[in-house]
């Protein structure tokens, strides 16, 4: 593994399927414009024969080759695998088969999902070079949906962080301003989509790790209801909080990807056996008249940048104009969400990361024929984990210790219950809750690396949904000093469709007001 894509991106090659897919109709969408297409438009063009999947894939690979030295979203590019998957889509289309709604669409996978045929590093030295012998359920569902997997993208080590600076393989840069962080931990996923390297990406969200990068990169990002998307093959950070979800440029694209990966999985006991919420239909409704929207008092005042508050207020105002009813609600226990999270997540991670011990896979350090197993484990973990991971393992080990359990982990679980009750009480009055997604826009790389607590505050508004399990979306609200900021929409558990109902309508209205999607304002790379 290097700090650059590990597989060479092939030079532009003639389309493997030749003339059939490379019809004259594709001329208008190929090349530079192809990568700017939404996932839905890409799939529609492929289905209509205006664009081949191979062309779409090559366009993405060319874009990666062009900009990723600067952005450093990708840890591994599987050009060969992507092109052969794309070729199969084109062959099946040529054979007259009906394709799925995302067939042939390129996608970037967060490097925390076990993936056959590619490395899975979790952004950590301790997994350098490890190849999973199995596919995560999310990955196998994407393959089954004929989505083209471009490769694996960067992240904070083991998903611990809010800036992607905690990756062992170097930071990813924000495409809006490459001196700034792209958010984290799914920073590679967000940067890849914002830099037009892929129309879609999978992220994971434990305390905001999809929504915060989506917000600071000007994207739509969704953390589905806990249990809505299988965690099988998602390398666990905090099992009771982790959830994979979509990052996309539009609400509809996010809904399509959400639908492709969601649904019951017998391999994950915490996956729920309920129908997938009708998120695609909800995204298309574009009507929020009479929808009751609660503004969470505790998530919008002090600590939030003026620019963030202004963009948020304008978005709420837009919802009013669309006919939604705006109510202010109080969720008093949200104030305790951050400390509770920083007990629960490290506690679970201290146990989840115990398996990285050099015995069966991954890095092994100091096995000199003299050292015993315990010594090799210790040397490997010392060398293989970065400082933030070690900090959280130590914190969690302490919080679970005999005599401290009740005061820390036990108490945090009680807070979690109280936060769930706050949500339940709020949802008796309103259909969805809203807040700014993050307190600030993207900060400069290096600005908070020496101040973990300041970094932790990035997730102030996003953590309550992880603790209570409900779904939440970040949607571009506007710019603050030229940098994107997000509005967070939260809904009751298993009512993920409400995010898309409100998100779809708000996106349309904000784009109309602006005259174009927010991402059109991103500076050229």
């Amino acid at each position: 593994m290097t700090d650059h894509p590990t597989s060479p991106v092939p030079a532009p090659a003639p389309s493997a399927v030749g003339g059939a897919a490379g019809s004259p109709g594709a001329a208008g969408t190929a090349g530079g414009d192809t990568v700017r297409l939404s996932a839905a438009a890409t799939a529609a063009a492929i289905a209509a024969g205006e664009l081949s999947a191979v062309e779409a894939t090559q366009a993405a690979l060319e874009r990666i080759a062009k900009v990723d030295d600067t952005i450093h979203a990708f840890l591994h590019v599987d050009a060969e695998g992507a092109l052969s998957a794309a070729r199969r889509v084109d062959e099946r289309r040529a054979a007259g088969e009906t394709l799925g709604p995302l067939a042939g669409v390129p996608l970037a996978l967060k490097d925390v999902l076990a993936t056959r045929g590619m490395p899975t590093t979790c952004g950590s030295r301790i997994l350098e070079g490890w190849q999973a012998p199995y596919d995560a359920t999310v990955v196998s569902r994407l393959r089954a949906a004929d989505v083209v997997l471009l490769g694996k993208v960067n992240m904070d080590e083991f998903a611990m962080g809010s800036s992607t600076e905690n990756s062992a393989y170097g930071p990813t840069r924000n495409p809006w301003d490459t001196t700034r962080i792209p958010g984290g931990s799914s920073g590679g996923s967000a940067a890849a989509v914002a830099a037009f390297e892929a129309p879609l990406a999978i992220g994971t969200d434990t305390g905001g790790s999809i929504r915060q990068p989506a917000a600071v990169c000007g994207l739509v990002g969704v953390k589905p209801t806990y249990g809505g998307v299988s965690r099988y093959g998602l390398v666990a950070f905090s099992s009771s909080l982790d959830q994979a979800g979509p990052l996309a440029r539009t609400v509809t694209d996010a809904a399509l990807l959400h639908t492709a990966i969601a649904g019951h999985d017998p391999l994950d006991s915490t996956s729920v056996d309920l129908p997938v919420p009708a998120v695609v239909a909800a995204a298309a409704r574009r009507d929020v008249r009479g929808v009751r929207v609660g503004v969470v008092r505790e998530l919008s005042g002090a600590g939030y940048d003026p620019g963030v508050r202004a963009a948020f207020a304008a978005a709420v105002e837009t919802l009013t104009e669309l006919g939604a009813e705006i109510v202010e609600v109080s969720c008093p226990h949200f104030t305790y969400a951050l400390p509770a999270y920083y007990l629960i997540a490290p506690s679970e991670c201290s146990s989840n990361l115990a398996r990285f011990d050099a015995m069966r896979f991954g890095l092994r350090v100091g096995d000199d024929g003299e050292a015993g197993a315990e010594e090799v484990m210790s040397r490997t973990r010392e060398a293989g984990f970065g400082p933030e991971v070690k900090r959280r393992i130590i914190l969690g080990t302490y919080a679970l210790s005999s005599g401290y359990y009740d005061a820390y982990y036990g108490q945090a679980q009680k807070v979690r219950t109280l936060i769930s009750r706050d949500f339940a009480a709020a949802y008796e009055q309103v259909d969805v809750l809203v807040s700014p997604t993050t307190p600030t826009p993207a900060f400069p790389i290096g600005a908070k690396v020496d101040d973990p607590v300041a970094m932790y505050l990035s997730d102030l508004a996003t953590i309550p949904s992880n603790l209570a399990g409900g779904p939440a979306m970040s949607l571009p609200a506007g710019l603050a000093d030229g940098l994107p900021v997000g509005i967070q929409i939260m809904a009751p558990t298993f009512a993920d469709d409400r995010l898309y109902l409100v998100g779809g309508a708000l996106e349309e209205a904000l784009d109309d007001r602006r005259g174009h999607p927010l991402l059109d304002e991103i500076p050229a790379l």
Partner: protein
Amino acid sequence: MSTAAPASALPSYDDAIARYEPVIGLETHVELGTVSKMFCGCATAFGAEPNTQVCPVCLGLPGSLPVVNEAAVRFAVLIGLALHCEIAPWCRFARKNYFYPDMPKNYQISQYDEPLCTNGWLDVEVEGEIHRVGITRVHMEEDTGKSLHVGGATGRIHGATHSLVDYNRAGIPLVEIVTEPDVRSPEVARAYVDELRELIRALGVSDVRMEQGSLRCDANASLRLRPAPGEPDAPFGTRTETKNLNSLRSVERAVRYEITRQAALLDDGERIIQETRHFDEGAGRTSSGRSKEEATDYRYFPEPDLTPLELSAEYVDEQRAALPELPAARRARLIAEHGYTARDLVDMRNAGVLDLVEQTVAAGAASPAAARKWWLNELARRASDTGAAPADLAITPADVARITVLVAGGELTDALARKVIDGVLAGEGTPDEVVAGRGLAVVADDGALTAAVDAAIAGAPDIAEKVRGGKLNAVGPLVGAVMKAMKGQADAATVRGLLLERLGTS
């Protein structure tokens, strides 16, 4: 230091228990005989090539998740019900965190403060007396892999140059059965494990083979002074836990040794260290393991990868209704119905023929005693000669029942019956077919027999003379000659009588 052997010589066991009362509790791990592992679909067969029964889940690969094996839960519920436990309507798994190379995730999925079964009991009989042993809890967990230490002298980790780990056992479902400190003697401790093993075998949920490790036992033991008459019991003393006792005999011996060792320390005015100890079978002694001060903090917390286990009352009732007849009830029935003694039952069970005897009686044996006699005395011996289990012999309870009927009817002698058994085991057919095929029926025709007797006397006049002279024991060779002439199809006692009568000595 008092963790090693005491300074003075150990008192005799009788001397120790005259002054001290032992307080003993037992923790037993039982591997459940499910087809697949506790949290994945891997096979559980014993003795497979190392690391051939593994998958991402039981290897603890990153991203893998456990899924509870419903059969294992059902087996654990059956054990709980058979031990008269309450079955929790809601319980959870917990992680027990510690680092060890043969534990793939470096935590074991177990149960902590919310076990599946609590508050039961098991009655144990020793020399006619019933001892009720309280069951604190029965909980579920997963087994670890197995380490093989290579290069050392003893196969232990100390001195080894490297270790190999076999993860086939990792993730096999276990239940841990914990008793109250109710046991007061090594004999009851042994009898408890024996009875528990019988119970679990009767449930069909484990093969409970201690030598293969599918049943493993840890014994907690402490001593307290016996109270003077009229005084209340003394509080419990400090206990030690002797780990991994892998035979009934070891359970008894290890506890017995601990009693004498602790008594000697207490006699010397020393204190007992709370620690785990290992039992050396060869030396018959326990030695110090780790003390409680160094004990690992397991940092238990509820397993977030599994949802709580909720068992409905209907489910539990269904399992209760599915319980087979349990050993104690069966013993009572066999004694009442068949007239066996408790000793008979122990002998038959130890010989592995109890089921076969019962089936033989059910198949119409001449009598329960005859069924017992043939299985216990004849067939169990033949099985052990060939290293097989009696149940694996090529003879059915129905065959044995038929043989007992033929013997009781005088159609076969015991000696002939053994030949019939030879034939059946050799695959020559049913007992009746063997009798016909080998011509083994007792010859009752006096003419043929009388002729053979006369011929034998005529053929050995010197022996005949000795017998006539009163040396009755000399008749043996004549009996042999008659039996040979009759091809064995005569009753030896009858032949002897006829000979003596003919020679005028009876």
